[in-house]
């Protein structure tokens, strides 16, 4: 996969999320992604960046335009150095939340994108990578 362009954004407060979402939209528009996929991507990214803020305090989001086999896509990598997730399988279940919330962020984000990858080490942090293909 070839990376065509990228942007690394630090997310440490609510305002950064707005900035990040705007930037992500620019990338999606740049590769000609349709409105529905754009909205799905931005919503998934919104969930994951809020998780970083809420559970890890802060983190970074790397936005990249990637060149897949048949089409371009936008890939976002969320990395934080927070507490990590001890039971990923449980965290990925609908309705599981340690924050008295809906528990839809992780599983919902996974349903909204084309590819979803999560790696987490307790005490070290969490890295989640999502990719949305232009027509995916």
């Amino acid at each position: 996969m070839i990376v065509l362009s990228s942007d690394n954004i630090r997310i440490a407060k609510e305002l950064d999320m707005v900035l990040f979402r705007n930037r992500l939209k620019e990338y999606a528009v740049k590769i000609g992604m349709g409105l529905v996929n754009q909205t799905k991507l931005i919503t998934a990214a919104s969930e994951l960046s809020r998780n970083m803020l809420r559970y890890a305090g802060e983190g970074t989001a790397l936005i990249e335009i990637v060149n897949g086999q048949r089409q371009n896509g936008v890939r976002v990598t969320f990395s934080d150095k927070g507490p990590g997730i001890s039971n990923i399988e449980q965290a990925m279940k609908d309705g599981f939340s340690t924050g008295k919330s809906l528990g839809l962020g992780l599983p919902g984000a996974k349903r909204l994108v084309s590819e979803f990858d999560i790696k987490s080490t307790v005490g070290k942090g969490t890295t989640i990578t999502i990719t949305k293909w232009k027509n995916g």
Partner: protein
Amino acid sequence: MKLDTAKILQKRKKQILELWMKNQLVDFSLREDLMSNEELTVQSEELVDVLLQALSDVNLDDIHSIALTPVHEALEGISISRAKQGYSPRETGTFVFSLKDALLSILQQEIKNDPVQLLEESLKISKLIDSLGIVTFETFIKGREEVILRQTDEIAEISTPVIRVWDGVVAMPIIGTLDSARTQVVMESLLQEIVDTSSNIAILDISGVPAVDSLVAQHLIKTVSATRLMGAECIISGIRPEIAQTIVHLGIDLSGIITKATLASALRHAYSLLQLEVRKSAVK
């Protein structure tokens, strides 16, 4: 013989700073209205300090070295504060690039006997400062974006009007993102208006909300519950097709809430709840 540029520059730190200050002060664009000369000196000194410190730890060839992180941080701090104070990009750019002149003239004095070395070291310094220039612009623009966002926020705050669309029906169009603070404002003014106008139907129009994630959805659900506690019904309108699909995939359950695609259909629903009928008048 290997030359140690970092050491040479370290030794001439005082002159570098003086020269740089001189370069900055002669620049016609210097903004004494925004920052006093003393402040500028402090800022410049700070940057020269971290830069020279970093140079002694880092190979000059490697402009991506992490040893440069403190320099980037100092620069980011400076350019963000400049963006917010209203400096122009030119002024901020000049700040960094005039340092190049100072560093290069000192190098020229120190390595004047070896033109090949001088050229090589000058190119490295040049490349380094250019990369710092890029960092400066990136953060400068980010600073500006933050200013714009804050203003957008403020505008949104004052422009969340509640409209009486009919006797007993109030509507509230929401434009922009719906964060926790904003929800509070929306909820308070909506509930107050329901009391003031003794309305029993409220329409919350989200046509202007760019995305509905789980937090926004929770805010909407809370607003609807609060409205119901006041004895009024709440309709959410302006659910665009892309938003509807996203909500379904996300897994949010809005089935307990009356939702409509457009404000018009919400209004029609309100009329039917009030047992009103809108008809074309009969032709005479």
